[in-house]
């Protein structure tokens, strides 16, 4: 009985999701057909290796930014927890500024002002650092909520049974924190991937820039943007589906 009803539910879900996807596709096709100019993706075939480079660079820069912001975010978390009030204040001020700053502005300030101030003209490196810095306060919050989700009583139990500090982290705290961290971390990864598109202002050949370069040759702007859109979705949708799976499997 129960099995039956869940399988009907699953079947219903498939129908509803298919319908929803068809609706969106229908809308897209409608918009495309309404274009008065000729419409063809074929012209982008010649630029496939450029676009490939773009995809690879987008993924590469996103992974680097993810790792970087995970590390910097953790440092921020530790500083915000520090007993030294100056560090807490520093992180607070920094977080407020970052929250209010558009990523594009941060990238430009980083590459054209802060970089040169330190004699660095490596714009791509500075751009990546901007992305890392931009994400770090968000990562800090992820750590904060993950660590605070371990209850006071669990710490009492650890005391009671006499776990050493190392054992606490190794066997009890970190295994729980990782499970809680994973889904919001992966959401942040999506944000990073989309954010990396702004690095095009530095002429870094990530996906956005690669397509724009191709557009300037083919003059097929609408097709270019649609192609770009689809490629971003191909990267981000599996990621968010994976996030949901991890969330379900690992929840405590």
């Amino acid at each position, binding site marked *: 009985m129960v099995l039956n009803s869940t399988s009907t539910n699953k079947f219903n879900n498939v129908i509803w999701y298919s319908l929803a996807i068809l609706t969106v596709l229908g809308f897209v096709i409608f918009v495309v057909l309404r274009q008065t100019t000729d419409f063809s993706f074929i012209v982008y075939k010649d630029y496939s290796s450029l676009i490939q480079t773009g995809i690879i660079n987008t993924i590469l820069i996103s992974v680097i930014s993810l790792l970087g912001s995970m590390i910097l975010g953790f440092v921020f978390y530790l500083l915000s927890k520090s007993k030294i009030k100056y560090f807490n204040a520093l992180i607070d001020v920094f977080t407020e500024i970052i929250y209010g700053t558009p990523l594009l502005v941060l990238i430009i300030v980083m590459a054209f002002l802060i970089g040169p101030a330190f004699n660095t003209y490596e714009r791509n490196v500075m751009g990546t650092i901007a992305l890392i810095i931009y994400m770090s306060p968000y990562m800090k919050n992820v750590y904060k909520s993950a660590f605070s989700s371990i*209850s006071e*009583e*669990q710490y*009492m*139990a650890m*005391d*009671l*049974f*006499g*776990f050493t500090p190392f*054992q606490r982290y190794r*066997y*009890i705290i970190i*295994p*729980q924190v990782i*499970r809680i961290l994973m889904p919001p971390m992966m959401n942040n990864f999506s944000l990073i991937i989309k954010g990396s598109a702004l690095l095009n202002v530095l002429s870094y050949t990530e996906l956005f820039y690669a397509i724009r370069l191709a557009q300037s040759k083919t003059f097929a702007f609408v097709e270019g943007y649609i192609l770009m859109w689809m490629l971003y979705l191909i990267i981000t949708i599996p990621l968010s589906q994976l996030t949901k799976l991890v969330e379900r499997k690992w*929840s*405590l």
Partner: protein
Amino acid sequence: MKLNINNISHSYDVEVLHDLKFNLEGYKSIAIIGVSGSGKSTLIRLMSGMEKPTFGNIDINEMNVSSEEYRKKIGFVFQNHNLFPHLSLKRNITLILEKTRNKTKEEAETIALSKLKLLHLSDQVNKLPKNVSGGQAQRASIARALSVDPDIIFLDEPTASLDPILTHEVLTAVEELKGLGKEFIFVTHVLSFVRDFADYVIYMHEGRIHEYGLPSILDSPKTKELKEFMRKVR
């Protein structure tokens, strides 16, 4: 059990226990009762050594409760099981035995399975706490407390978050432990359980031990506060 409470006071933001003095010897199962906010949970935490009193000290069985020696001899069951949520019921026990009691993997496994069996959980050993009922989780928590072979087992309102049926299930399981030769100190609101299981009762009121004695004090309370309490919980 030999219990010596020497002039303890305890404050969080306000003082919750006021200069308690109490000596007792020869009982094996002590119930602490009282309304919420009377200080009974604080008292049991201080007795277990989990928290230190602001003033004074407590000796149980001639050991200071904050000593390492004492800590190795007690087990504690929390209000809501408080198992480590990422570990199976069995692993919740074996982890403690392996890491803090120097047991081998095999010894830990044997002990864990035998204690879980004692609490009728043999078919749940590999489940995570979230996948068993509240009553089963609480029984696993009792098994965990037993697994370190304590002399004294503390239970702090073990059924506070359970419905009446699960409460019955858990308390029945506790009553079955009577034959193990352990000593018990527990806080509960379930008076039938106090009558069945305790051989001594402490009634707390506004941060003081207000009335105490054999469980028969429940039937003929002397102070008006305990009378009132008995009338209300009925």
